[in-house]
């Protein structure tokens, strides 16, 4: 159904349930939907599983969500950064679960979920700690490991511009995980810098078609 244009970020994340899996876009701060995460903190949902490339930077956004004690588990490729002290503290204190997934596998598992595929045979991580216990097989002389879809109940993504239907365009490397996450969650919320009239975006340049977007909010 066509996207709803929300009045504010609180309306955009209303109804998020405890125990949800939330896909959060961004790579570092580029494309990171900080205002939506702030709204999710206000909204109060807890016991969350967060899927994002990193595990929070500094004290804002995802780091603030972690600091507020709302997150049971983080699925990400790279938690450890110079400014990931909030995650590091929780992890060392045994207060948060961590699943480390190679970055490309993280992206592809979400694409797989969005594309209705049951799983894929990946050459990434074969023979490493990160695929221990996963099924392997040889195909055409090469070893692969079975990777399964990764779905979200909610995706929070940052885009550049939306039209009123919910079509999205991004800006530079802030595109990163947004288009993939938009395909992989039951409810997709996009924050954008600007909402334009339907017909104002060039149809050749739409990166995330409105079919994937449930709610849009300008920030």
């Amino acid at each position: 159904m066509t996207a709803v244009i929300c009045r504010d970020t609180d309306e955009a994340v209303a109804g998020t349930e405890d125990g949800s899996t939330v896909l959060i876009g961004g790579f570092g701060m580029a494309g990171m939907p900080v205002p939506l995460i702030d709204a999710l903190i206000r909204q109060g949902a807890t016991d969350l599983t967060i899927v994002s490339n990193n595990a929070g930077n500094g004290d804002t956004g995802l780091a603030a969500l972690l600091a507020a004690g709302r997150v049971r588990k983080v699925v990400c490729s790279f938690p450890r950064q110079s400014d990931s002290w909030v995650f590091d503290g929780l992890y060392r204190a045994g207060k948060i679960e961590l699943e480390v997934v190679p970055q490309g596998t993280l992206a592809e598992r979400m694409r797989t979920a969005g594309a209705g595929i049951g799983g894929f045979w990946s050459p990434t991580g074969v023979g490493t700690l990160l695929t221990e216990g996963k099924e392997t097989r040889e195909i055409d002389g090469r070893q692969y490991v079975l990777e399964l879809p990764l779905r979200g109940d909610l995706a929070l993504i940052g885009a550049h511009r939306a039209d009123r239907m919910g079509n999205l365009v991004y800006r530079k490397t802030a595109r990163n995980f947004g288009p993939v996450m938009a395909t992989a969650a039951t409810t997709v919320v996009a924050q954008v810098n600007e909402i334009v009239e339907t017909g104002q975006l060039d149809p050749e340049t739409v990166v995330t078609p409105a079919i994937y977007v449930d709610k849009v909010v300008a920030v």
Partner: protein
Amino acid sequence: MTAQQIDPAGAPMTADHPLDKNELAALIARDIPAGAYVNLGIGQPTLVAEHLDPTAGVVLHTENGMLNMGPAAVGDQIDPDLTNAGKIPVTELPGAAYFHHADSFAMMRGGHLDVCVLGAFQVSTTGDLANWHTGAPDAIPAVGGAMDLAIGAKQVFVVMTLFAKDGTPKLVPQCTYPLTGIGCVHRVYTDHAVFDLGPDGARIRETFGSTAAELVARIEAGTPARTT
């Protein structure tokens, strides 16, 4: 076919005559929710587009890589780079988006379309679909996107005549034509009735020109005895 497989209980007769193709298309259009993302396949299902309320914001998908497809192109609108899945020149509406085939079929397979409407040779009472191949030994098989649509859309509607030209029912206990998908059809719109299908069999929603009991009798009379 047994009574358990087509349940006529309570189905009203809502028209006093069998529906023609346009009446059926209008009926389907009425049942598509406002704002839905819809694929209308090829051929007869595309008639539905002409009956959609333009203010309802239904968005048409064409599997060759477009959302917000507009009506058929005429005159100067014709652009060889802009066609529908039947290769007929079409137009674009505001809010359109183009994407490549892998993305288009990821959209279909991934369950993002609300409704698709397909034609069929046969549908089983439990929702199996046969619409790609007659099984005739000299037929050249050709499937296109039928199998992806059949298993991908949230709601799969079929539009077909209830009886073949020789009088045999096309809603059957088990398809004899090669299958397109298993248990994938949710609803069948025919000239004589609309059926909801599910794992427990068919239920008649409404009939046109016959009572439900008359129809069931006619279907049973035309259905060969089951060989199982």
